[in-house]
């Protein structure tokens, strides 16, 4: 099993952090192999931000994402840029307030991540709300593994809020499935 | 062997007798300056085993190789960053850089200004003989305007550095200029530099009869020494901006002295991690005690 995940948004949304958390959860807390990469080239400029994670059962050879199996987008431009690369029948996850998918878009999972984060009092945890949601709908990494990654990565003063944000996103999943 | 030599001259234990005679030309000003430094090594009260001398390339760069202390003859221009690292790793050592004007201020100029800015604990002694002697008398960053050199056959048209002014401007805590005629004052200045913590700079004007004197009709070394004696004035309080050397104007004095002696925090990469900042910088001393 090898799954390629691309998370895309704009700078400041914390996309890189959730990519790192996802990879760390898989590699350190879920008995899997994972590689996390991010764009450093000119394409990383101009506000766009994306994080790539490869998760596999066996050691990862080619470390880069070429055709993502899962695409998480939190920004309209990110959707437009990366949607064509998603594999046929791949998992598309989006922030429904920030991304308006094509009318012909097939099945996808939508969550008002940023709005839910605002409800938690901190818009900046929208990324972790999204991470929770993605964890639930993708089933790639166990919930406990991601929570362990949050604990081993974040400063203690930020932890409680982020765990709540993660739970908020995770628990939103059944509703999201109905909406899709 | 060494004992025998020591009977011949009291300074012999300071030198690697088995390396003499040296390579310098008759009349060269480097030898006397080296001797002043060697005497300062003894009079400093710091054991010879704790002195380190580092140089770059050029005639003056050969000095460390003649001294009977830990000595490093590095690449052209790089003595200062090399010596900085020695001083940082072993803060209990007294580290000097002994090199020439071309080495320290042309190819190595960038390192000098940054070491001075950081106030690295180094004593920089620079022989200034106004040319590249080792390669046969080329123009350099201190060659006076109008002077002739093999690569300035019509006369140098570039403004030279005033080294003490440059050193002071970039942050050296002690700045002096002497000549290889003023050996007692030079030795005293070196001793003061050794007592100071931070980057000290001493310029030593030195005759280079072959590379500089001859093409500039100064004559032999004695004549250049005479020139120093006639035109040098000691003025410790001279304005730093007025220290330029103009050999063409006979009435333009060459100002010598100990121009700068200030206190400034010494470069210490761990300074910001040490407890309670103090007015006086004791932190590196504490480190010396730990290590020494």
């Amino acid at each position, binding site marked *: 099993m090898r799954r390629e995940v691309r998370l895309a948004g704009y700078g400041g949304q914390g996309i890189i952090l959730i990519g790192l958390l996802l990879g760390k959860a898989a590699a350190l807390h879920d008995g899997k*192999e994972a*590689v*996390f990469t991010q764009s450093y080239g000119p394409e990383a400029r101009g506000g766009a931000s994306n994080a790539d994670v490869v998760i596999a059962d066996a050691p990862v050879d080619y*470390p880069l994402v070429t055709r993502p199996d899962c695409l998480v987008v939190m920004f309209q431009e990110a959707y437009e840029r990366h949607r064509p690369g998603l594999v046929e029948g791949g998992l598309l996850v989006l922030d429904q307030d920030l991304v308006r998918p094509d009318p012909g878009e097939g099945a996808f999972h939508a969550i008002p991540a940023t709005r839910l984060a605002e409800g938690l009092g901190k818009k900046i945890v929208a990324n972790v709300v999204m991470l929770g949601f993605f964890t639930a709908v993708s089933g790639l990494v166990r919930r406990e593994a991601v929570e362990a990654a949050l604990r081993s990565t974040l400063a203690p003063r930020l932890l409680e809020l982020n765990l709540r944000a993660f739970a908020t996103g995770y628990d939103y999943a059944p509703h999201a499935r109905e909406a899709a | 062997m060494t004992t025998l030599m020591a009977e011949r001259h009291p300074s012999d234990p300071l030198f690697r007798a088995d390396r003499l005679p040296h390579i310098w030309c008759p009349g060269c000003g480097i030898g006397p300056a080296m001797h002043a430094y060697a005497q300062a090594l003894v009079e400093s009260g710091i054991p010879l085993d704790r002195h380190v001398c580092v140089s770059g390339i050029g005639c003056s760069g050969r000095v460390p190789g003649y001294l009977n202390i830990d000595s*490093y003859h*590095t690449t052209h221009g790089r003595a200062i960053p090399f010596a900085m*690292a020695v001083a940082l790793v072993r803060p209990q050592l007294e580290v000097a850089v002994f090199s020439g004007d071309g080495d320290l201020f042309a190819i190595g100029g*960038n390192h000098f200004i940054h070491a001075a800015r950081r106030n690295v604990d180094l004593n920089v002694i620079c022989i200034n003989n106004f040319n590249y002697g080792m390669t046969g008398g080329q123009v350099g960053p201190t060659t006076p305007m109008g002077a002739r050199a093999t690569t300035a056959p019509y006369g140098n048209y570039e403004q030279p550095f005033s080294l003490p002014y440059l050193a002071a401007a970039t942050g050296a805590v002690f700045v002096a200029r002497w000549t290889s005629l003023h050996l007692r004052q030079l030795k005293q200045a070196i001793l003061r530099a050794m007592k100071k913590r931070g980057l000290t700079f001493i310029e030593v004007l030195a005759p280079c009869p072959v590379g500089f004197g001859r093409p500039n009709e100064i004559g032999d070394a004695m004549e250049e020494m005479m020139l120093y004696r006639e035109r040098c004035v000691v003025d410790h309080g001279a304005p730093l901006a007025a220290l330029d050397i103009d050999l063409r104007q006979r009435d333009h004095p060459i100002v010598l002295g100990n121009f700068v002696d200030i206190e400034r925090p010494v470069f210490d990469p761990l300074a910001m991690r040490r407890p309670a900042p103090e007015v006086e910088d004791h932190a590196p001393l504490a480190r010396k005690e730990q290590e020494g």
Partner: protein
Amino acid sequence: MKDGPAVLEGQHFLLGDHACAEGALAAGCRFFAGYPITPSTEIAERLAHRLPEVGGIFVQMEDELASMAAIVGASVAGARAMTATSGPGFSLMMENVGLAAMMEVPCVVVNVQRGAPSTGLPTLVAQADVMQARWGSHGDYEIVAYAPASPQECFDLTVRAFNTADQYRIPVFVLADEVVGHMTERVVIPPPDAIPKVERKRPRTAPGGDGFLPFQADDDLVPPMAHAGEGYRVHFTGLTHDERGYPATNAEAHDRLVRRLVEKVRRHAWRIEEYEESQLEDARVVVIAYGSTARSARRAVAVAREEGIRAGLLRPITLWPFPGERVRRLAERVGAVVVPELNMGQIAREVERFTHRPVLGVNHAGGAMLPPEPILDTIREAATR
């Protein structure tokens, strides 16, 4: 802020560059001098944070000339010292790489390779400094260069680089590339007592006696090293020198010294060389790949095997010394050798020195990782030879 330990024992999800930094700390590196340059800057940043935690010294220098000079100075004073850079900085360091070779001063340089020549592609991968690592400074000398293919190897090989540097008193390179430096993967850091440590050979006589000549080599051609301030009153020079360290600028002394500098590595090459082999037992096509490209090659070999092509992979871990004798023996029984690399054929040329079989390069100048597909295509072609 709580201080971290020198050896960050445990499992981590680490950036390759950061793993290099942690490898240095675990190896006992306590001096780093460097100049920021993409894509190696994260090494400097990590060490700027971590070295002071363990009482080590971090200095951001004015340029790479100074950085390299400083680590040589730190090493003669007894510290394990390192710098990190990328192509343009590596070029500047070559001057004092030569000094370290000539003065026999152990030191470690990490080069996280990017697109070149000149400023090239600051943020994008290449593997085009392989020959520069070997021959970059003027004159004859030998170095060792390791090519990590993962963050774990960034850690392991940086540790090894320090040990090899100290064992042979030479500059050692960790020749990483942007993909490896900028990828994050699991890195397992062993406990401090499980970190291999080779001590620098030191004088066996007390200072002050007549017995010690600082450049008199033992039977292994490596002289014991006295540090500044120990009382041995050493003289080190970049000039050709004799056993005392004194300049000896004549043909005889020069040949004797340079021959030893070269021989002390060549004679031990069998011990220094490292490589990884997979599926070579029955291989008809051997792929030789290193660094990040080896990961693409591994995929290509796997797919080729699925297609029934008997392909195998030789991954040099030391590029220098190059495991040429291993290549010679392997190549005897294969139809062709495939050498994918992100340059115009630098290691392919080295491979050609060891075999008369066809050597098929898979080359790209850099800017992106070499994907498995062109390697697979070439394996298919090689299988017909």
